[in-house]
């Protein structure tokens, strides 16, 4: 028993080697199957999670659409969304001036520029500066004009600054002559309609 009689044990050794080889091959093969299945399971889990996120997103989008679509359509109809409409702005200013009984106005529109990123919040928000200069009789004519313009505005604007200044000698005169000049700078905002509709 001390020294194996190799000569007569060739077949037995071969059998043991074959068993070992088959065991190794079988184990490696089946383990490989486990690895492949594990990877596929992980992939399937990832895909399922992605699908669930997409489903959740679609629920959220559905809620967003239900909540904001009407408001969005209204903004679009009002002119906030889409290309700027300078003529409508000018007409609104003139109409507000007339409706408040003022004495005409001068206007100046500058080229449209992109709004600051902090304000635009990632949207393609553009802003156009409109300077209005018009005489008024009393100080309260200015808020009345701005309120009238706000009411008729075909879009969204913001009054950046206003200045009231006296014109000529401030001597009291009985005639109904405007001696005060108002100068206001307005920012008209428009947002470009971006592609990327239904998911």
């Amino acid at each position, binding site marked *: 028993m001390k020294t194996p009689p190799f000569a007569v044990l060739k077949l037995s050794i071969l059998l043991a080697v074959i*068993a070992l080889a088959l065991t190794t091959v079988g184990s490696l093969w089946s383990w490989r199957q486990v690895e492949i299945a594990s990877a*596929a399971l992980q992939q399937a889990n990832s895909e399922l999670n992605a699908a669930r996120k997409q489903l959740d997103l679609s629920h959220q989008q559905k809620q967003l659409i239900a909540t904001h679509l009407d408001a969005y359509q209204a903004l679009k109809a009002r002119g906030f969304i889409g290309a700027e409409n300078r003529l409508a702005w000018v007409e609104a200013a003139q109409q507000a001036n007339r409706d408040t009984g003022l004495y005409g106005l001068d206007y100046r529109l500058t080229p449209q520029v992109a709004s600051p990123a902090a304000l635009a919040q990632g949207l393609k928000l553009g802003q156009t500066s409109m300077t209005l200069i018009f005489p008024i009789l009393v100080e309260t004519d200015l808020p009345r004009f701005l309120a009238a313009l706000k009411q008729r505005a075909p879009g969204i604007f913001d009054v950046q600054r206003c200045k*009231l200044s006296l014109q000529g000698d401030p001597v009291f005169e009985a005639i109904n002559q405007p001696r005060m000049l108002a100068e206001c700078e307005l920012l008209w905002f428009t947002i470009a309609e971006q592609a990327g509709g239904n998911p």
Partner: protein
Amino acid sequence: MIFTHRLILLATPRHIGVLDWRPGQMHWLGEFSDHVTGQAAFRKLITRYAHLPVLLVIDTVDEDYRSEILPHVQGRARDEMLARKLKQVFRNARFTGSWLQARETGGRRDDRYLLAALTDTDWLLPWLSVLHREQVPLYGITPLAMACQHMLNKLKVQETHVLLAYRLNNSLRLSYYHNGLLRFSRLISGETPTQLPGNAADEIAKTQLYLTGQRILPREARLHVLLLDPSGQLDSAQAPLNADPAFSTRLIDLSHLGHALHIPDAFLAVTPDIAPLAAIAGEAIQLNLAPAELMQRHTEFRWRRNLHAAAGVIGLAGLLMTAAFWLHAQDLNNQIDQLHQQQHHTRVRHQAIVATFPLQTVAPEQLAQTVSLAQQLNAPQPDAVKLLAAIGQAMDASPDITLDALAWEHALDPPRREVNIDLDASLTKFDGNYRAAMQRIEGLMNRLRAAPGIVDVNLRNSPVNTDSSSTLTGKTFGPNASSEAPAVNFGLSVRYREASP
């Protein structure tokens, strides 16, 4: 279980018996005489069972036993010492063996060996040649007395000095066991006249005298004689032996023996030879008389069996591992299928929801963001009327100050309700007294601070520069020269914050 299946042969000079043994199951395959026909039949039988390991139990008168006390050595030195001792004691006997029975408790603590040999084996050679020719894995040759020792162990014989008188095949074997270990054995063949039933007691007494004379058995020891005879011829020896105080005799009946060996009584009664064979079949060989060359086949057999066992274990382990991994993989695949189904259902639900969306060109998130931004831009601005009222309230209380210009602006970023106001004004009726003028301006500033919504007022543009690093020039006027005095202009910075609605 398959590894314990074996053949146990009981060889005597006249015949050989064969027992097919495995745990819990045995078959008596027959007895073959030493004639040509018997040997041929034996060869034919052995051919069928050549794959089983074989133990050869010898029952012959040509055997010799010797107890020896030898130094305690181990390994190769012990092998060489025993080989020398066997050669010295038994000369050229081919079938010899030694058994380390115990170690002395005193002195050098030497080892006590039982040496044994078959002194005449010519009758055995034909049987061995059959085994050799058929390449049977012979794993041992042992005397029948050793088989009987295991039989006594199974009978749970506890006495210290035991003499077994075993009548088998018309011969009487007397074996002495000390503490259950074989010390001496002799066979009285059936051809001798002492085999008459009445002489058995005499033979036992003579054997006791021999053992005492050889100092194998202590003089004062009482010998317990166990009589085992399936034919019942030894029963008559019990009375005379018990009459002698040196003996204590009892019979072993077959039913007791069969129960101890788990052999049916009927089977044992028909084939009494199997009792010692069944007793030694499952035990390790302690006293092996087979020379190494006769056990070569068994050496190969053991290696082959172990290799096959290893291959089987490896193969089985591999099969189990492969099956376990494969089943695990199938389980994972089933999970994957379930996940795919869930994924499919989720996508279908998603598509169903998306299908309800109105046709539009913007993403829903952008839609919401656009509306939110519009609300932010469209937030109410500070009320200009309130702002003007706050300024006007302060100006009305300062009739000697004329407002020249009023400008305000506010930032788009929050807070949207705070307005920075630049106020340009001038003093009326200035007489050149700048100290008084500054007091009037300070009065206006205080009134502005008291107006609602005004949070801070600063002098932006002073009518006079009293800084020591600059040049200050001016002119004073008489009491009635006010019309000649220049206008005194100044500017204020005011911060206005409309109260939250």
